[in-house]
């Protein structure tokens, strides 16, 4: 940092959103810059902490070319547009900050440099996550050995035996490579067909994530426990060459027991479900060359006297603020209120319209000479009262009662074939609502069915029948299975119109409409392919639009169907 130049930002304490403008001036000390080749300024984000520096989104301006005359202007205004991301992040191994840097380009000498930081929070209409973020996040978060590693391990064992006794070292290394895949294979042999899924895979802070584990064992099987653990980790790489070191820090860990000791009957598909609610202040997924914040859910099936089964399911936390994250009336009943405490403190975004307007980066004309306070070093920040960071240690987080909102549920063994999101099977009339039978699992109460007008569409009657059933009732599952895949015509009264995210390729960059079936209060959500964007772009709350769409899945968290047009 040089005393020759100082950056003064307008409203330095203000948190900015993407598209806002960060504006300020670079002040050059009198007597400095007379031999410089130019004065430059750059806006970018940079990481700092345990890992090597990553940087991005740089914009650079030349404020002055050539030497700065002694009697010329001393203040050089600039302005930049705030980029779409990443948001400012504070962690233990990793921090992401946005900076404005300025430097005097001095010939045959080290440049005189200075920098100031400013905070960036998500905008009101954030962009969807970049393509491939989920995959990159999964790759970064992967721990252990691939199948390829196991093959290498087997080869090493053969070589090790040939080189005994020195080969013992090779055999030991090979064992480390081989054991994890072998354990998994053994576990899967016992468990039969097992799948673990997350929905959605992209979620906003404060949103809900459902984890579902389906087991269909080939023989009667006992398990000690089925557990899902939602985890956030910082993973940073420091050093280069032989000094390269990877640092890992578990920022938070939320275990959720999906099932305690129990027996799983042979040949019967049993499903275990539970929900996590992310903290409102959850860190966004961040993946760069050396610094990463990754989320995942690890599913762990504990089999007595047998290797356990583990699976990591990647999750992207992104400030999408979209349909999948808003908690509607369909949220699991009995759940406590949304978390207000967690491993982080929320960013207080100042209310009211932004003071600065967005605009392209530009250099404002140099104003009259300004005498900056260059005779003293930068004004020290006034001491601030120590913040009271919430305890984020894993153990403390685990015991926190409000984070996450984890509600284990066990559904009855599926009596009907698995739901499919493809094809349009012939629709069958929906049977009238039936009350739950006494032998059904003690479930959550049914959703409140809406009263339907006589001319309500067929879909409304079907949905009403489902909503009248208890949430964990087997009958409800049957009705949902019958509904899924069917095509329906209806008029949708739009409540929200937004860009789709985390969707199949055919619907990527399309729109998602959420609204009610006309004349009813029943909520549905419909994805549209991008080819319909022109028709839909202008639709807003209250608009009515005729829709023909197929039910692709039932969103149990919100008790509503997800449909594709």
């Amino acid at each position, binding site marked *: 940092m040089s005393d020759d130049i100082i950056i003064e930002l307008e409203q330095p304490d203000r948190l900015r959103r993407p598209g806002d403008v960060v504006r300020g001036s670079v002040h050059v000390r009198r007597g400095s810059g007379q031999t410089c080749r130019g004065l430059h300024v750059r806006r970018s984000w940079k990481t700092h902490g345990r890992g*090597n520096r990553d940087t991005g989104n740089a914009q650079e301006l030349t404020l002055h070319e050539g030497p700065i005359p002694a009697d010329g202007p001393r203040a050089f205004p600039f302005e930049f547009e705030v980029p779409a991301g990443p948001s400012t*992040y504070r962690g*233990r191994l990793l921090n992401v900050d946005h900076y404005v840097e300025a430097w005097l380009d001095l010939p045959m000498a080290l440049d005189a440099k200075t920098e100031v930081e400013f*905070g960036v929070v998500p905008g009101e209409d954030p962009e969807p996550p970049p393509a491939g973020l989920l995959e990159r996040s999964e790759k970064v978060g992967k721990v252990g050995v691939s199948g390829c590693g196991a093959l290498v391990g087997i080869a090493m064992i053969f070589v090790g035996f040939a080189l005994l006794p020195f080969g013992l070292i090779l055999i030991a290394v090979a064992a480390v490579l081989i054991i994890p895949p072998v354990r998994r294979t053994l576990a899967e042999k016992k468990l039969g067909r097992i799948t673990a899924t997350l929905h959605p895979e992209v979620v906003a802070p404060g949103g809900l994530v459902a984890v579902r584990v389906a087991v269909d064992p080939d023989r009667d099987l006992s398990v000690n426990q089925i557990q899902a653990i939602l985890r956030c980790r910082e993973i940073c790489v420091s050093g*280069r060459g032989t000094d390269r070191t990877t640092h890992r820090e578990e920022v938070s860990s939320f275990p959720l027991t999906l099932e305690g000791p129990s027996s799983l009957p042979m040949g019967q598909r049993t499903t275990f479900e539970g929900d996590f609610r992310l903290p409102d202040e959850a860190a966004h997924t961040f993946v760069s060359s050396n610094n990463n914040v990754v989320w995942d859910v690890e599913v762990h099936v504990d089999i007595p006297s047998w290797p356990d089964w583990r699976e990591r399911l990647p999750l992207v936390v992104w400030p999408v603020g979209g349909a999948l994250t808003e908690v509607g009336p369909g949220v699991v009943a009995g759940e406590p209120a949304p978390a207000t405490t967690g491993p*982080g*403190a929320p960013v207080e975004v100042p209310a009211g319209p932004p003071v600065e307007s967005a605009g392209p980066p530009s250099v404002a004309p140099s104003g009259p000479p300004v005498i900056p306070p260059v005779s003293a*070093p930068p004004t020290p920040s006034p001491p601030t009262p120590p913040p009271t960071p919430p305890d984020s240690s894993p153990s403390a987080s685990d015991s926190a009662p409000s984070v996450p909102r984890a509600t284990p549920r066990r559904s009855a063994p599926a009596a009907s074939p698995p739901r499919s999101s493809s094809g349009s099977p012939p629709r069958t009339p929906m049977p009238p609502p039936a009350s739950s039978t006494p032998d059904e699992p003690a479930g959550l109460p049914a959703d409140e069915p809406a009263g339907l007008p006589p001319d309500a569409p067929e879909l409304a009657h079907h949905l009403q029948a489902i909503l009248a059933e208890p949430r964990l009732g087997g009958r409800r599952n049957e009705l949902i299975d019958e509904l899924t895949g069917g095509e329906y015509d209806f008029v949708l009264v739009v409540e929200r119109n937004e860009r789709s995210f985390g969707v199949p390729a055919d619907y990527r960059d399309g729109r998602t409409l959420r609204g009610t079936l006309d004349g009813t209060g029943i909520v549905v959500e419909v994805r549209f392919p991008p080819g319909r964007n022109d028709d839909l772009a202008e639709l807003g709350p209250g608009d009515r639009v005729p829709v023909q769409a197929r039910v692709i899945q039932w969103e149990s968290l919100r008790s509503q169907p997800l449909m594709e047009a």
Partner: protein
Amino acid sequence: MTFVGHGAPRDAPYARLNLRRNPFGALEPDERGEVAVVDLEPWGSEIERRLRAPAPGLDRLSVQLVGPPGSGKSTHLAALARRFPSAGHIAWSHEEGWGMLPEGELLLVDDAHMMPRRLLKEALRRPVTVLATHRDLGVRLRGRGRQVRVVDVPGATRDSRVRAIVRRRLEWARRGDGAVPQVDRALLDRLIERHGHDLRRIVGTLYDHLEDLRETG
């Protein structure tokens, strides 16, 4: 810990400590050079003389910085790069391997013990090379007709230097006037006793200490 915080200066995470960032985190090469506490003499001056007035009859010069990982070899190179801005710098990269040799009369080579023979041979054609290496490459260098200077990096590290490094880093990360945190002398003595002159481990431990201080006050 705060996940998403206030990036503005007054509320920045280290502002309460009057710091811009954790000074014991990873530094970029130019920052390393800025905070380096190293003694480049007398061989630094010898390099300077060689570069200023190349003597045709004189053997080319190689300076070896020898020491185990974490002893400060790369920091010496960073300080040299700062002193000789036109020097070329090459290091093995996890992603790209060695790559091409950079331009420059003075060539700085990190992890020279890993350098392929052919590339090292090419590097030794430069008038002056400085090699950071885990093991002494003197035999190979002299065999190629080089004058060799050997710098025992950990041997040059005194306790006082470790203390100076810590002070320099804290000053480097200073946000403004006023006090910055100080590392307790007893703690530093304990770290030196435990880690010897493995500066990387000492600095890594101090990183965690400062993070604890930031979080708990």
